[in-house]
């Protein structure tokens, strides 16, 4: 076989593989949009569910997911970014830091249902937070931490060492270098990591199953110790647990969840590309 023919075949093969990667995404998004868009109207996203969730809207699930994501961010971002700063800027290579890194890698590999059970044991029962937004947010935060820590640490390490050296040579403390140079330069990478971590939290069902999610609760939560409905769990409920559920409501709910997650994703992409253009190295 001639070399150029071989090359053409190679290109075709790689193209097909790429198509195989893209096709499911297009199919999933396409199906959900096509079947779900008809259910989307102002009432659907702004009113309480009625008639055994077969009618009305999904407002409490939307609000619940937004609150859980916010709660997760409040806990996971300071701890995650703080931990990343420690690991990247202060920690030397000791047995302790190696153990910390190992723990982070392993945390990232734990199945989400295990986080859910841990949250139930730790926050709901032992700390007596009950089934609540607080317990759910904490559980999701622990699940999100490894993603935030490792992406933030990577972003911090990508800032050239020379900047730290120059800062030190001008009498700047380690913290001043972090505060005035390293952190601002690493911010786009950190924000991207934070958003990607939160996206995963927003879409998870298993960790909230035992810790916060309500099967049917047609009112908005009034305190962090309240239960709430949440989009992923609601979707699971209406597709498997409620007989006679109109298909359009199921796809409509999936559409809203997808739109929420994708729009956050787009925000992350925009932030990243915006800052990358302004970066100076």
């Amino acid at each position, binding site marked *: 076989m001639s070399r150029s023919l071989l090359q053409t075949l190679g290109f075709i093969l790689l193209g097909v593989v790429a198509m195989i990667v893209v096709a499911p995404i297009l199919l999933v998004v396409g199906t959900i949009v096509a079947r779900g868009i008809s259910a989307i109207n102002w009432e659907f996203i702004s009113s309480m569910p009625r008639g055994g969730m077969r009618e009305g809207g999904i407002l409490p699930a939307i609000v619940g997911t937004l609150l859980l994501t916010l709660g997760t961010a409040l806990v996971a971002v300071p701890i995650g970014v703080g931990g990343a700063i420690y690991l990247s800027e202060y920690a*030397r*290579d000791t047995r302790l830091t190696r153990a910390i890194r190992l723990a982070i890698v392993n945390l990232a590999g734990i199945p989400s249902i295990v986080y859910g059970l841990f949250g139930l044991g730790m926050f709901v029962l032992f700390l007596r937070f009950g089934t609540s937004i607080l317990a759910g947010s904490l559980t999701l935060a622990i699940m999100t931490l490894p993603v935030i820590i490792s992406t933030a640490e990577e972003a911090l390490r990508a800032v050239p060492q*020379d*900047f*730290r*050296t*120059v*800062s*030190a*040579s*001008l*009498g*700047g*403390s380690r913290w*001043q270098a972090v505060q*005035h*140079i390293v952190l*601002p*330069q690493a911010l786009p990478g950190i924000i991207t990591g934070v958003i990607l971590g939160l996206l995963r939290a927003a879409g998870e069902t298993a960790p909230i199953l035992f810790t916060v999610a309500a099967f049917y609760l047609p009112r908005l939560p009034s305190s962090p110790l309240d239960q709430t409905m949440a989009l992923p769990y609601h979707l699971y409920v209406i597709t498997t647990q409620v007989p006679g559920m109109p298909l359009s409501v199921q796809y409509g709910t999936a559409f809203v969840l997808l739109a929420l997650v994708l729009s956050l994703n787009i925000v992350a992409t925009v932030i990243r590309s915006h800052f990358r253009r302004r970066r*100076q190295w």
Partner: protein
Amino acid sequence: MVGESTRLRGNMLTRSSNRQGPGRIPLEGAAAKVRIQGVSYWYSGKASLEGVTMEVPDKAVTVVFGPAGGGKTTLLRLINRLNDMVDDTHMTGRILLDGEDIYAPATDVSRLRRRVGMVFALPLALPGTVRDNVLYGPRMAGERDTSRLSDIVERSLQQAALWAEVRDRLDTPALSLSGGQQQRLCIARSLALEPEVLLLDEPTSGLDPISTAKVEESLFELRDRYAVVIVPHSVQQAARVADYAAFFLSGELVERGSGPQVFTSPRDRRTEDYVTGRFG
């Protein structure tokens, strides 16, 4: 090569005829700003400096020169304790600044680095504007007074022979300056802290001849005020700027003396071979 070094000496003498030139003070009579006493230094068990003892006189340019890997940069980075940032190193000996051991436990390292400024081989502008770069040190030291800060900007840039070129561009990104301008900006940034010692590690290695001349010109402005230690990027530059010179080979201080003495009548054979271009 003989012709080359004669020409260099000619240059040097021209310099010294219209101002107090190289070697104007005999080594023995000079006031030592920094004393390096029996310093040895190891990276991961590998020796980089071996038993170096020398003085850095005040208000003069001391050239530290020699082939690559001789420990010159290490020596500079020990004088402002920048090598504290490197793991797995070991040091013996003492370094005194104005008679005080800078490695004493009570030393305030940030304060030490404000007293001992450093300029690196590459122009490492920090993110931000020209003004931000000049004021980084003073701001980190806690200076908030706006009028004093703007005085610092003008004075430092003037001392670094850059003011005329950037006075209208203080708020543009530092990276929009040319390489030569950026390096003078880095010098200005060090001068903003009014250091007592200025360490320059091959400050012109990445620059074209015209920029190099400008940087050297700013060095001549500085020699009357600071103890300047420079690792030159060539023997020619070493000869042009040296009041005093120290020749390093493989971590060992081979010879030191006044500039003219080291470059015209070196005492050690190895120095002579290097200065005349037989190796290096």
